[in-house]
């Protein structure tokens, strides 16, 4: 089996989807000739031509609005937004139309499109290049929201997203693009949307994370193992639909939970998880659910970024707090 990083796995998924279905197309800023600023669409233009791999003007609302029309009209567009910080100009199209046309037309019209958005901090980038605003999509009814943390899931989830009859916001952790390499089957396969994954089993506490923060979660679990603390780590993979069973089952078992995300704390997605955990498993909880998150600030630039992002140390401290109760 080939050993791929996430960029390669995503690229393979796109190529296979385009190979299998002539309705699948890719559009966005610099996705063609340049192959995408992260090279996720590298080689697709040469292989599938200008009709199906489209460099667009710099206009995010245009990209998503046109992709919406393409999808309603029978295509299966995969739109790329260059960085999450540039997804906001398209927010109206996503919230007011992409997510709603099925409901508005009672299934008569549908918008099966994928919006790929690189997200997250940790590469010392300029402002607007480090956002993690998944919650604004997760809160929007009618969208599925998916976040792979490793190459295998990236490929399988992207193939599921493209095949999905409904719009999927597909968040790609920039920091994980090339950080991890693993075996990825050559043939197409799907990882189901809406299923979390127990990335590491444990008995003393549950860590819930997704995307780039999985590295810190697993790192913390590893560090705590050395101290004899056994931490279960759940990789959500999908925020919507949320796999409540897997999360709750784990917390029922361990009695303690820590949620990690790099987004700002206030009204971040951790709140949803805490709410659900205590709704379903309050009496199993031996301590408050701990949130280890970014601060309520803009992501600092390079010199201060490490002060913002949850580190292995902060996650370890969070688990200790959960253990102490």
């Amino acid at each position, binding site marked *: 089996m080939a050993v791929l990083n996430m960029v390669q796995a995503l690229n393979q998924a796109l190529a296979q989807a385009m190979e299998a279905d002539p309705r699948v197309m890719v559009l966005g800023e610099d996705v063609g000739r340049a192959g995408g600023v992260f090279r996720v669409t590298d080689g697709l233009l040469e292989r599938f031509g200008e009709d199906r791999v489209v460099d667009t003007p710099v206009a995010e609302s245009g990209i998503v609005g046109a992709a919406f029309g393409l999808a309603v*009209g029978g295509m299966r567009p995969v739109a790329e937004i260059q960085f999450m910080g540039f997804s906001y100009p398209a927010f109206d199209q996503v919230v007011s139309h992409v997510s709603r046309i099925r409901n*508005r037309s*009672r299934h008569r019209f549908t918008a099966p499109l994928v919006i790929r958005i690189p997200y997250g901090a940790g590469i010392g980038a300029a402002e607007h290049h480090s956002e993690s605003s998944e919650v604004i999509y997760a809160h929007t*009814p009618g969208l599925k929201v998916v976040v792979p943390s490793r190459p295998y899931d990236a490929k399988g989830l992207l193939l599921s997203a493209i095949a999905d009859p409904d719009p999927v916001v597909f968040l790609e952790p920039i920091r994980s693009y090339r950080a991890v390499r693993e075996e990825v089957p050559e043939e197409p396969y799907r990882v189901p949307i809406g299923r979390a994954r127990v990335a590491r089993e444990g008995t003393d506490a549950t860590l819930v994370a997704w995307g780039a923060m999985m590295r810190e979660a697993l790192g913390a679990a590893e560090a705590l193992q050395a101290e004899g603390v056994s931490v279960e780590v759940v990789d959500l993979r999908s925020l919507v639909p949320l796999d409540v069973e897997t999360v709750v089952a784990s917390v029922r078992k361990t009695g303690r939970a820590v949620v990690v995300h790099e987004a700002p704390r206030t009204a971040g997605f951790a709140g949803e998880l805490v709410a659900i955990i205590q709704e379903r498993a309050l009496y199993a909880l031996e301590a408050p659910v701990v949130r280890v998150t970014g601060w309520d600030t803009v992501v600092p630039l390079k010199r201060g970024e490490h002060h913002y992002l949850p580190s292995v140390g902060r996650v370890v401290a969070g688990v200790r707090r959960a253990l102490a109760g």
Partner: protein
Amino acid sequence: MEGLTGRTAVAQEPQQVLTPDGELVGEPPLDLDDTRRLYRAMVAARLYDRKGSALQRQGRLATYPPFEGQEAAQVGSAVALRADDWMVATYRDAAAMWFHGYPWELLLLQRMGDERGGAPPEGVNVLPPSITVGAHLLHAVGLAWAERLQGRDRIAIAYFGDGATSEGDFHEALNFAGVYRLPVVFLCENNQYAISTPRERQTAAPSIAVRAEGYGFPGVLVDGNDLFAVYRATAEAVARARSGGGPTLVEALTYRIGPHTTADDPRRYRSEAEVEEWRRRDPVERVRRYLERAEAWDPGWQAQVEAEEGAAIEAAVERAEAVPPMEPEELLGAMFASPTPQLLEQARELRAALEEAGERP
């Protein structure tokens, strides 16, 4: 001075074929039979429009956005389409949508507050009316693009008002259409107001049509109360689109005779005299005079048309009002192809709440 962009070479006088008195000042682009058919459609549309306002006053519709005065702009352009072309229009475009196949009944049902009005019959390629201003131009762009990519020759038309031309999405849509030379027609019904804001405070541009050059395709300014002028310009634009010639921006100068919606009081921002002046350019009466001159209209036929179309509208109202409300599961059941576990649970929660409240589940 070299390099300084100046006024366009072409005068900004709107194209006209039929004067307000119903006299021809150009070649009529439609024969008498077709003209009678379109006249009938405009009469029907006006009956519907009056019905809409009346129903609202009786509390049977939520709000209603009248289009009186814009019948020629809507019917004259819609008739230029092929039956399977895409139409993406606004809350004020009931006449165009109906003419293109969207039943009165469903337009009413949606206005009564039922989402099922948003589902036109299979084969009617009309999206439910756009409530947001501007965004839907991009939808027409994408639809036109999808058709071309799938090797079909359907085109798409987007209807929008003068206010919509100020939204960023107007710009992005026209720019995409120009770059990809898409088969799309942008039909601006410039009815002089966006709610209370007059056209000259919407933009300092001499016209909306003039903007087309900034996107690399033609713009046309027409008398929007002139059925023939609207038809001719739209037909040309549709033909250009269908034959691979790319997009066109058509600006139809017209006027909203009624309030913005039944909740609006236009006396706050315009004079009765102004409205009167536009009433004299009424698009329906104009065609009636033309037909009368051509001895293709008489009061008997008028009465018959009004009776038949009125009855059809009454029947549509009855059918829409007879639609039973949705059950909770159906109400919550159209966000996804199959509901998420969360939605299933929420539907159960709603059902339980209703039962607890003693409402019939």
